[in-house]
């Protein structure tokens, strides 16, 4: 973290993020990301060794509740939002494992 951020591998980050990028977008995104990462690198100036991180703005400990079943959102309602279903009962996805496809 030296105030510069050269050489971000945009294609690799996109792979981690499961994002397909238009190839002509990569150079400009690289420039923008390097400018922003270069800017946020200013945090390296601060000595934070002895500082506790803030995970949440308001400190909370584990919240315990009675172990009783709640009322979940009905299955048919949730399935209505799926892009594709099988007989309105299952979410349909393309083939996951190699081999013969399902009908």
């Amino acid at each position, binding site marked *: *973290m030296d105030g510069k951020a050269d050489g*971000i591998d*945009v294609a690799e*980050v*996109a792979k*981690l*993020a*499961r*994002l*397909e*990028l*238009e190839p002509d*977008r990569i150079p400009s*995104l690289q420039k*923008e*990301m390097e*400018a*922003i*990462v270069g*800017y*946020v*690198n*200013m*945090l*390296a100036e*601060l000595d*934070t060794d002895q*500082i*506790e*991180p*803030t*995970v*949440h*703005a*308001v400190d*909370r400990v584990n*919240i315990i*509740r009675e172990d009783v079943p709640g009322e979940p*959102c009905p299955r048919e*309602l*949730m399935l*209505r*939002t*799926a*892009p*594709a279903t099988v007989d309105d009962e299952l*979410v349909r*996805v*393309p*083939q*996951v494992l190699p081999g013969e496809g399902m009908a």
Partner: protein
Amino acid sequence: MMNGSDPVTLTVREASAGLEHGDFSSTELCRAFLDRAALTEPKVRALLSLDPEDVLRQASASDARRKAGRALGPLDGVPVTLKDNIAVKDAPCTCASKILKGFVSPYDSFVARRLKDAGCVLLGRANMDEFAMGSSCENSACQKTANPWGLDRVPGGSSGGSAAAVASGITCAALGSDTGGSIRQPASFCGVVGLKPTYGRVSRNGLVAFASSLDQIGPMTKSVYDAALLFDLIAGHDDGDTTSLPGDSGGCAADLAAFEEKGAGLKGVRIGLPKEYFELDGISGEVRAVCEQAKETLRSLGAEFTEVSLPHTKYAMACYYIIATAEASSNLARFDGIRYGYRSPEAADINSVYFRSRGEGFGPEVKRRIMLGTYVLSSGYYDAYYLRAQKVRTLLRRDFEKAYESCDLIFTPVSPVTAFRFGEKADPLQMYLSDIFTIALNLSGDCGISVPAGIAAESGMPSGIQFMAPALQEKRLFRAARAFECARPQKEFRASL
């Protein structure tokens, strides 16, 4: 039809009184807003969707309840507009994104449930920057919203549609969400009141998550009193949000009414001026002038100003953009084209469902932030970025704790500039930097309010001021804001559309 009441300036408080006294029915009230929307929406485009029949159905049900003496409370029949990232059962919830185009929510958010239980009429879905990422609404994948005060200018963002809906007078009030200023900045740009409650005070259950440790829902209204009324309604514990705090708002509207009866003065109230904020180069002359005038007004009310220091201010933006993008990249992983939302028709196997659906479904700013967040969380960088930012967040919180030792409230501008023109801020980093006065509050988790203060001399656009207070001190905020509202030289903020 409305017995002389002007729907454009009609507050929640006035609408509630009018309904109670029988001056007008909810149906008449909602019809007046729908008529107004038919006139202004072609120009302003604050709403992504509006179902007039549904609005009138809700209004008529409210009228029937009231007629039968079974009104659900003082706000029964009052219309409120929700930002399009707050879920309402059977209503669209798109976050102004292609990836959620056509999505209809199967359930109510906690706040929608609260509004419905109080009898409020939910009127329309407000435009926003895609997934609340932006400061101008220009990142909406659906439409650009214009500022009702100047149609060539942005309404601010990301809750720009909510702000423009209230300012153009097509609703009584709205709810927005604030992750780095997304309620307060558009409120300032559009001349309305906007509250960012204490983190955890309002349940995030049913709010589409952007940055979970920063997001908070809050009211956007025509008056400070209205903001207190709506805050009372939506605040409170919810088992459905693990970060929800116990207790409720403690009755802010009643407190405000008592405060008004006592004359609404600020004698003895110590207001801190953070020197690092006012030393910033980018504050425009006209915003500075509005702040100076506001300080005079506050002094005349008896408030005392004292300089305070928030020494880590220059690191706030960097800290924010690491935490917000890291959390966003994680939250938005759920949009994978499998269970809901857009699925690319081109995708033939499971990986291309992920890559293509996300690639085609997300807009440029959302992609940029997912990329940044993925980068700062990636192997080998976590300690250098995310963990370090969380530690700097602690330093920023300590700054505020220290400052509040010598003051009750902190006073700042909301934005260094008034509403800018479309396309004026093209560079993403420059756009991020315009949030400098609002982001620290989300990092600290405290509460803040934006109140219209005046019309800026050069642009002729409204400009707000911001009060910040320690966590759970919303009453303190409302009192100062209400006292200021009563005493400010410019009494009425009404966009001439």
